[in-house]
């Protein structure tokens, strides 16, 4: 009923201004639409006429790519875009998301002026309510981050909330965050306006045209096959929303786009007797799982329930589309929540309950970027109910990516390549999105893990470790131990606590760290991505020398830490490469690099070479033996001397461990602690593990997890790719000049940029901060993304943090910029600049003093236990 009503209203309001579409107006008759002939070729074909597709078309045409065709299977701005609740909110958890939303906001604001199409844009602001202290902390963290990127927001009291919205019940609130520049807008009209502007710039738009599949030749997009004929093209952009997954799989060479739809409900009411002012702010009551906005004098309210209803698991299904009905029983908890928040609405009359499926992704972040397997195949989909907020910014970044080859911001967190085929199972997606949708409004505390879709990839030692009390986290589908709960600990109590403060595993990890420092620990690190590169001739070395910044022409058996840089000198990957032989190399990269790194190598390797690149991740189990006694354990197991004289640091040797032969032993631990990484062919994994544990018994060996590793590596200032390093950071910006050999005798990717940077100086610098006046027990813990203040001025954000048990302080890593006080322009950062500053870290609005360090604390390397520290309990076996 209101479906028609909505469309009529929109049609009337948007009836002018877009006559110049190729297909004529969307009101054109079906027969007319059929007679239209598509162009034979175009540079870019975009699939999807929702807000994403039109935004990409708009930005491409703005950047000068005019040979663009946009195809829409139904009508423009139908689908999720039509039914979107129209709330634009910039309060996001990730900085990149905040920036996309901020850009969208600015874009939509001026869109009406630019195109003459009414978009219904009203700057209402939004208010995020906190019913609990934890929620307020979460809001304060967001607030700190919004402020430093120039989006005004403030934490306000419940009383102030009541002033902002007359209908709200504020008695159960502890506070709120007010973002005054947030807006509401009609998303369908925005999409139409973007389409109209794009079409004025030369983009051709055809509706009622379905894409059957994308044609691919030699891993490169060559065109699309539609129900109205073929179009040749170089680039294809999949903005098909909830159908993106299916469309991706319809190719001969499938493109895996992991997303899944869930039904989403919101309520529309008839106007209130005394309508709210049009600029009444949007309310987000995350603890009540609802959002509420002003809508045509009445209320629009929806939410993200705890028990979502996934839909279209088996693909587009006409039956399911027809059955998308109002499910009042399902909506009941949200309705209760609404009436609790606004009791006066009791007498308000219902207009309709709208059911509009929304698309969700396995990690709650949208998907954009180029396919790892098909060049020229771009994707922008999976908006997790924030399509309107992200539409403008995401479209812009994707257009930049296509036009320049890379976006202007680091978008790794949203990159399609963070996923692989392993996230593509329908069952996995169905289960995962049922967890993701409620998570949108759940409290996000540090170190939460997904509960669904787990135990997909495991090491052969999984059961052994699990039986010994391992608690697990997941990365790229791989289970990794966080820490090991000792048998005497209360397991139930441990799993339940969610906190922004000191976590309950603190003591457990402390004992693991201590064991790493004093004895020896084993960490199963099998999840790391492992590639082997070999060639008949010298091509392997040549190619690697070109791809990596460090000098890889080292004697056989040496390990080199090196970055895989892009043209701008930024890290595409940070890895360790062992030279196994003259012509073969073993490459270890972060877990989530499996798809990205593979694609990068494939893209840059000469096509016809006899170079062999193999993903051997699954072939090896990796055990990290950390600690001073690792030497003893290994020499006892191998009858080979393992002392630094015989086995220097950063050295790799194939040797026997126990009965097993062919174990790759490397003298590095990824933490700066002494010890070894063992790369074990999986069939030997259990044997080697058992041997190590039984021999290690007398050296006090125990299992440890990634939390201990994290604490160790951060206190030693070891930056990790994906957390601290990204495509926009160069080795020079994080003190890794030594890993760049500008004069290694040949060119490598990024060399020019680095030379330039070396000459000009860097504009940001990775710095280690040691929190001074921070009480570990009582104060909020740092996580990541906390603003850094230098002499009271915003200077950057932290990238990761951990508690250092050795320093007994919190350590944060983060980038320091030098923003000009007058212009805000970035200036050169020198060591002197870093050292001369007084620093503070802002954790949820509270600033803590911090000492800045450019190099790790040296005392850590020579830590020796004092004699009088020894206790009787140290004699106990672990």
């Amino acid at each position, binding site marked *: *009923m209101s479906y028609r009503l909505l469309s009529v209203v929109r049609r009337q309001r948007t009836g002018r201004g877009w006559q110049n579409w190729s297909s004529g107006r969307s009101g054109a008759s079906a027969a007319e639409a059929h007679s239209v002939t598509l162009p034979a070729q175009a540079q870019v074909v975009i699939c999807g006429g929702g807000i994403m597709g039109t935004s990409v078309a708009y930005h491409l045409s703005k950047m000068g790519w005019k040979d663009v065709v946009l195809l829409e299977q139904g009508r423009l701005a139908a689908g999720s875009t039509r039914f979107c609740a129209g709330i634009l909110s910039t309060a996001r958890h990730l900085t990149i998301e905040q920036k996309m939303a901020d850009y969208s906001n600015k874009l939509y604001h001026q869109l009406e002026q630019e195109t003459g199409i009414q978009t219904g844009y009203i700057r209402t602001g939004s208010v995020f309510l906190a019913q609990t202290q934890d929620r307020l902390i979460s809001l304060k963290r967001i607030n700190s981050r919004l402020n430093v990127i120039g989006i005004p927001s403030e934490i306000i009291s419940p009383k102030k909330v009541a002033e902002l919205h007359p209908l709200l019940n504020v008695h159960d609130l502890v506070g709120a965050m007010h973002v005054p520049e947030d807006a509401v807008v009609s998303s369908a009209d925005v999409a139409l306006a973007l389409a109209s502007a794009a079409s004025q710039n030369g983009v051709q738009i055809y509706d009622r045209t379905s894409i059957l599949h994308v044609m691919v030749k030699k891993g490169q997009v060559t065109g699309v096959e539609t129900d109205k004929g073929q179009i040749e093209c170089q680039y294809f952009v999949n903005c098909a929303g909830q159908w993106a997954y299916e469309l991706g799989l319809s190719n001969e060479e499938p493109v895996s786009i992991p997303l899944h739809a869930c039904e989403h409900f919101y*309520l529309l*009411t008839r106007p209130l007797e005394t309508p709210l002012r049009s600029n009444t702010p949007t309310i987000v009551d995350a603890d009540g799982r609802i959002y509420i906005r002003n809508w045509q004098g009445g209320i629009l309210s929806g939410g993200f329930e705890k028990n979502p209803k996934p839909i279209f*698991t*088996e693909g587009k299904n006409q039956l399911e589309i027809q059955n998308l*009905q*109002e*499910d*009042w*029983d*399902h*909506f*009941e908890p949200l*309705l*209760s929540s*609404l*009436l609790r928040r606004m009791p006066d*609405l*009791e*007498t*308000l*009359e*219902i*207009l*309709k*309950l709208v059911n509009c499926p929304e698309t969700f992704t396995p990690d709650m972040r949208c998907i954009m970027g180029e396919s790892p397997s098909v060049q020229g195949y771009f994707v922008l989909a999976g908006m997790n109910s924030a399509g309107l907020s992200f539409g403008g910014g995401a479209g812009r970044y994707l257009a930049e990516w296509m036009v320049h080859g890379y976006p202007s911001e680091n978008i790794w967190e949203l990159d399609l390549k963070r996923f692989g085929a392993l996230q593509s199972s*329908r069952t996995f997606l169905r289960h995962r999105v049922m967890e993701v949708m409620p998570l949108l409004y759940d409290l996000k505390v540090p170190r939460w893990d997904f509960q669904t879709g787990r135990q997909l990839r495991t090491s052969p030692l999984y059961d052994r470790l699990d039986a010994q009390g391992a608690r697990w986290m997941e990365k790229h589908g791989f289970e990794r131990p966080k820490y090991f709960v000792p048998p005497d600990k209360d397991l139930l109590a441990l799993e339940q606590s969610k906190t922004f403060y000191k976590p309950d595993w603190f003591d457990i990890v402390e004992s693991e760290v201590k064991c790493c420092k004093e004895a020896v620990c084993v960490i199963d690190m099998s999840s790391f991505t492992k590639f082997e590169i070999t060639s008949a001739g010298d091509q392997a070395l040549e190619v690697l020398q070109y791809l990596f910044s460090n000098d890889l022409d080292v004697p056989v058996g040496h390990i080199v830490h090196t970055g895989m840089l892009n043209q701008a000198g930024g890290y595409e990957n940070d890895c360790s490469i062992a030279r196994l032989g003259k012509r073969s190399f073993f490459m270890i990269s972060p877990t989530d690099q499996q798809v990205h790194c593979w694609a990068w190598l494939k893209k840059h390797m000469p096509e016809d070479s006899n170079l062999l690149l193999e993903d051997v991740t699954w072939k090896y189990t990796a055990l990290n033996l950390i600690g001073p006694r690792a030497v003893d354990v290994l020499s006892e197991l191998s009858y080979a001397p393992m002392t630094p004289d015989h086995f220097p640091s950063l050295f790799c040797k194939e040797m026997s461990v126990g009965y097993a032969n062919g174990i790759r032993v490397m003298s590095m631990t990824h933490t700066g602690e002494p010890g070894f990484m063992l790369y074990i062919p999986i069939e030997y994994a259990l044997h080697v593990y058992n041997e190590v544990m039984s021999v290690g018994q007398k050296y006090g060996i125990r299992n440890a997890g990634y939390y201990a590793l994290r604490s160790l590596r951060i206190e030693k200032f070891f930056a990790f790719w994906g957390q601290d390093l990204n495509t926009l950071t160069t080795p020079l910006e994080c003190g890794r000049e030594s890993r760049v050999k500008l004069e290694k005798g040949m060119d490598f990717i990024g060399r020019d940029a680095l030379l330039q940077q070396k000459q000009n100086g860097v504009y940001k610098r990775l710095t280690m901060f040691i929190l001074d006046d921070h009480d570990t027990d009582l104060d909020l813990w740092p996580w990541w993304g906390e603003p850094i203040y230098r002499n009271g001025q915003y200077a950057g954000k932290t990238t990761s943090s951990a508690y250092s048990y050795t320093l007994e302080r919190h350590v944060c890593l983060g980038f320091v910029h030098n923003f000009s006080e007058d212009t805000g322009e970035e200036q050169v950062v020198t060591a002197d600049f870093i050292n001369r500053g007084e620093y503070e870290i802002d954790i949820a609005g509270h600033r803590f003093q911090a000492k800045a360090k450019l190099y790790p604390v040296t005392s850590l390397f020579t830590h020796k236990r004092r004699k009088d520290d020894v206790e009787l309990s140290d004699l106990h076996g672990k």
Partner: protein
Amino acid sequence: MEWPVPGRTSTRFWVPAASGGVPDSPAGRMCVCPGPRRIGIPIRSSSLPLFSDAMPAPTQLFFPLIRNCELSRIYGTACYCHHRHLCCSSPYLAQSRLRYAPHPAYATFCRPKESWWQYTQGRRYASTPQKFYLTPPQVNSILKANEYSFKVPEFDGKNVSSVLGFDSNQLPANAPIEDRRSAATCLQTRGMLLGVFDGHAGCACSQAVSERLFYYIAVSLLPHETLLEIENAVESGRALLPILQWHKHPNDYFSKEASKLYFNSLRTYWQELIDLNTGESTDIDVKEALINAFKRLDNDISLEAQVGDPNSFLNYLVLRVAFSGATACVAHVDGVDLHVANTGDSRAMLGVQEEDGSWSAVTLSNDHNAQNERELERLKLEHPKNEAKSVVKQDRLLGLLMPFRAFGDVKFKWSIDLQKRVIESGPDQLNDNEYTKFIPPNYYTPPYLTAEPEVTYHRLRPQDKFLVLATDGLWETMHRQDVVRIVGEYLTGMHHQQPIAVGGYKVTLGQMHGLLTERRAKMSSVFEDQNAATHLIRHAVGNNEFGTVDHERLSKMLSLPEELARMYRDDITIIVVQFNSHVVGAYQNQE
């Protein structure tokens, strides 16, 4: 003082009042001593005055009594183990123990502590009697202790089985429970087998039947070549083809000791089937196979008891199996073909959803008891005319047994000579047992009892949504129409029945909210259970006169001491099989 009517239920056996029996009281009035549960005449009263909300002062005295018994249970932990032990080793002793009024026994238990007891009793009495109630989580943990669900795995989202899955559960009244259940998928043929077994005079027979019957059925269904293959594998010591995939609750155990014996009997059976085969491979008739399997198993039970076993434990076991009894109600589902084989008074009920969404019940089995005219007729025909009056007395077979067909129960099958011979040569426990020695009155022309099932065939239609198999413990307390309605509403969920649509009506948020809260309250009891069988038990035990679950009543019923429980209800065992209407519909369309 009035003892409230422990209505509704009655034991299968009415063992004549031997020593210590309490004289029959007029229906509706009993002495305080709960007395033997043999209280023969089934009293089908619809309400239990005991649990009326407004409790008259005198009956409040009942609470101390329950506590008393409860206490005795605590005291009797040792006794309980002992009791269990007895039950496993001799159900008859347990049985006979129940023939005596338990109360004096408790009194003896309690006597040494009497002064303390009175003291605390007084104190507790002054406090709220509600203290005794179970909390909802406690109730749930009792109800859910034995629940089991099985979903037929879906492959690629295409489930080709006409069975979606099943839920099963049981609630004991006897201690230990005498009901058994089984479910398995046939691996060498298609189809799924599900069955409930109601034991009497102990659990030995129902246990044996629950372990063995499906193998007999599966073997009966196997084609000649498969039988040969299996036999050859046994002969040459190769790995056997698996025949059944069991779907068992952890509490559903199989006896390890007897499995060799059972296997040998089964092997003999298939060897005979192989020999009987004349070479012309004909389609196996499921109905015939079911009948053969039932009869053969009963025959084997009887034979094993006659032959005995050198192992004294096994020897005693086979005798206990043979002397106790069990009814069986088994469903075989293969595509749209549903066969129900029933022996005794358990029941199979089909839940059919009519076009208007309402539910109706189709009975797929006939009870074999005195309420069934045809059974009465059959019994009279099978025995000489002069026995016409004695063969069924007081609605019981020979005045003793309620079901007219059953496994085991050789007392109703063997000649007197045979019974005496076996008992005399049997172990002492058997010899000392009064019940086994007792020969039914008017026992002239055995056998009086058969295990031959009545097989009904039903071709599944898309509107056939589920099948309920349950022992008489359920059917005594609930009408079949209610059973089907409750399961139907549970399985489809309320909103499928009547989704709310605002349509063109004027509805305010407040009105809608009220409506939804009401609907949710109705559904909350549905949501509490993840298992249709549990849900049904909740209703069977906790339903008040309005047909809704009354927690207080449920709590009281479940907190009855085990000695009393049997008077208020029988063991309840339920399997709810859900059918896949799409698959059933597809079958239909194929033809």
